């Protein structure tokens, strides 16, 4: 963002990498493990067409339809579902859906939340008061219910691939906007009275320029933390929506929550493979993202950061936050 201040290379200034450098011990372990798990899922999502043995809505091949509810075997490594779909393939394709929804949801909520937060925090006045009250009202409401309402509005029965994915993403966006809004607003209020912003104003800089150059650039430090934690929550919300039958329809994309809903009926007869695999995929991906977010959070907070123990020397001065 800022002009390169020599010495520090680009790589060392990227959020996660710079955090890994600062961390030590358990925190570093958690951060690295989380990053690896997340990257693995990203890789699976990108390579889905290559590694998935079948397409997500394929329930027959040249030899005829696949057997239904078949236990894991050589042909179908993770078994098949009640509809004769290959569980492994659906889990792999599901990664793509999950990540796509999360990326859209987070991009949307960052853009909207940051804009609202900047304007509301910097300009103040009645807009600020109204937005704060609205954000406070939404904050304690069960996120899943809000997502259900939003997805009813957006999908309204239709569910092609993109409208389904967009509906789920926007439903999740609605519940995240207040979080970004609050953080950025607080930063904007703080920065408003800083000397460099005031001098910019005195010099006659336009409000837009002050907002996007001076305030925005200095208020984004906590975004990587919210982002990773939100990503994990987005996965859970998407799965919850799918589980209630309000996500993406099964013929247009593979979605883990929906598959778990179908698997519910299977459990009574001891069929475990249709539920355990998509469920495990959710847990693992959320775990990876949360480990990342958690340790970023701890590392950015000097009180929680573990420091390397050095014998004989004083501890190095703690840098505030992860600039």
């Amino acid at each position, binding site marked *: 963002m800022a002009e390169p201040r020599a010495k520090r290379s680009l790589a060392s200034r990227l959020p996660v990498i710079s955090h890994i450098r600062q961390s030590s011990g358990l925190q570093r372990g958690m951060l690295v493990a989380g990053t690896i798990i997340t990257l693995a899922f990203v890789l699976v999502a990108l390579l889905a067409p290559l590694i998935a043995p079948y397409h997500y809505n394929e329930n027959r091949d040249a030899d005829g339809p696949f057997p239904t509810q078949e236990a894991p075997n050589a042909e179908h490594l993770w078994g098949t579902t009640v509809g004769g779909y290959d569980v492994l393939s659906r889990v792999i394709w599901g990664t793509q859906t999950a990540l796509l929804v999360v990326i859209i949801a987070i991009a949307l909520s960052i853009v909207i939340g940051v804009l609202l937060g900047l304007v509301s925090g910097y300009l103040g006045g009645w807009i600020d008061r109204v937005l704060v009250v609205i954000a*406070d009202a939404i904050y304690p409401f*069960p996120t899943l219910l809000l997502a259900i309402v939003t997805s009813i509005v957006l999908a309204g029965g239709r569910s092609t691939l993109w409208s389904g994915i967009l509906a789920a993403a926007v439903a999740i966006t609605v519940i995240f906007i207040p979080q970004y809004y609050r953080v950025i607003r607080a930063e904007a209020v703080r920065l408003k009275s800083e000397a460099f912003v005031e001098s910019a104003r005195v010099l006659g800089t336009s409000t837009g320029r002050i907002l996007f150059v001076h305030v925005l650039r200095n208020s984004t430090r906590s975004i990587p933390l919210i982002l990773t*934690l939100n990503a994990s929550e987005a996965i859970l919300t998407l799965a919850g929506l799918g589980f209630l039958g309000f996500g993406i329809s099964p013929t247009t994309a593979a979605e883990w929550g929906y598959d778990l809903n179908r698997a519910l009926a299977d459990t009574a007869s001891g069929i475990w493979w249709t539920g355990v695999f998509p469920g495990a995929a959710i847990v693992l991906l959320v775990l990876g993202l*949360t480990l990342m977010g958690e340790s970023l959070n701890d590392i950015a907070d000097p009180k929680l950061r573990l420091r390397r123990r050095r014998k004989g020397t004083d501890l190095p001065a703690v840098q505030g936050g992860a600039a």
Partner: protein
Amino acid sequence: MSLLQEAEAPADPPTPASPRRSSGGLGLGRYILVRALLIFPTVLILVTLVFFLMRVVGDPITASVGGRLTEAQLQERLEEAGYLRPIWVQYVEYLGQIFTGNFGRTITDNREIGDILVQYGGATLELVFYALIVAFLVGVPLGMVAAYFRDRAPDAVLRILAILAYATPVFFAGLLLKLLFSVWLGWLPLGGRASSRVQLALGRLDDPTGIYLIDALRSGNSIIIGDVLAHAVLPGLALGLLTAGVFLRLVRTNLISTLGNEYVDAARSRGVSEFRLVRKHAYKPALIPIVTVMGLQIAMLLGGAVLTETTFAWRGLGFQLAQYLGDRDFVAVQGIVALLAVIVALTNFIVDVIAAIIDPRVRY
């Protein structure tokens, strides 16, 4: 509810900022009054949001029965239900209804939303109660253990477990518990709130409360009590473990910061053992933030209850909501969601008042 929100919560309780700003040094009475007045804008905003969001799609009658009626019949139904009037008129009317406690009627089975609350609310309350018991029994002691072993192996294991509890969706936890304890081991029932014979027996009680635990205890029949409790174990665990993870983290963080206090140092210097410090000295102050974040937890539990009830066919509000969702009865959905908004606002109010009574700092 994200982990971040939990982490922030102790420092910034979910109380809206205004009472704190305005009540410099004023008493509890005034705090409660200001906080009570804040319920109205909160409910108003949520109900308005839900109303307009749901109306963007169109009217609920077309959504639920549109395909099955001719155009003329549809128009007639719409006219009858008042959906052809301007949206503002409908909105004002709707607010008036909510204000008098009328949340509308469902389309599919023409019932008052209020009746649905009366009939199924007890079941949800019961489930949330079981979940809270599990959360306290599991979360609080483990949080203390984690704080005691700070940054050592048991702490690391417990923290990972807490994250796992968060990462596992309640319906997947429920599915695994069902597979293990109901299908493979055969110890516990697969779902429902009681077996059908017990349900009949409970229905025959005079004036049943709908909360099976209370009804079963009143019947005094040990078989009935046992049956009701056996059905409660798995749903309670599935929903409770999620919250237990939150409690574990909260207790740990707060104990660690309380353990750094001077009065704890003083006790330590007098030779009080580290275990006793955790158990006696730092324990109570560290529980206060749990009360403060309970409001958010209730909201999370209600959201989780929808999923848990669907998983275990636990016929409560959430199960009913999912049914109406499946039937595309959006009046019912809108009504139940608005009702839940009111419940959430009220519980948050109660929790905030309790927090203010326990911890005077909240008032300022």
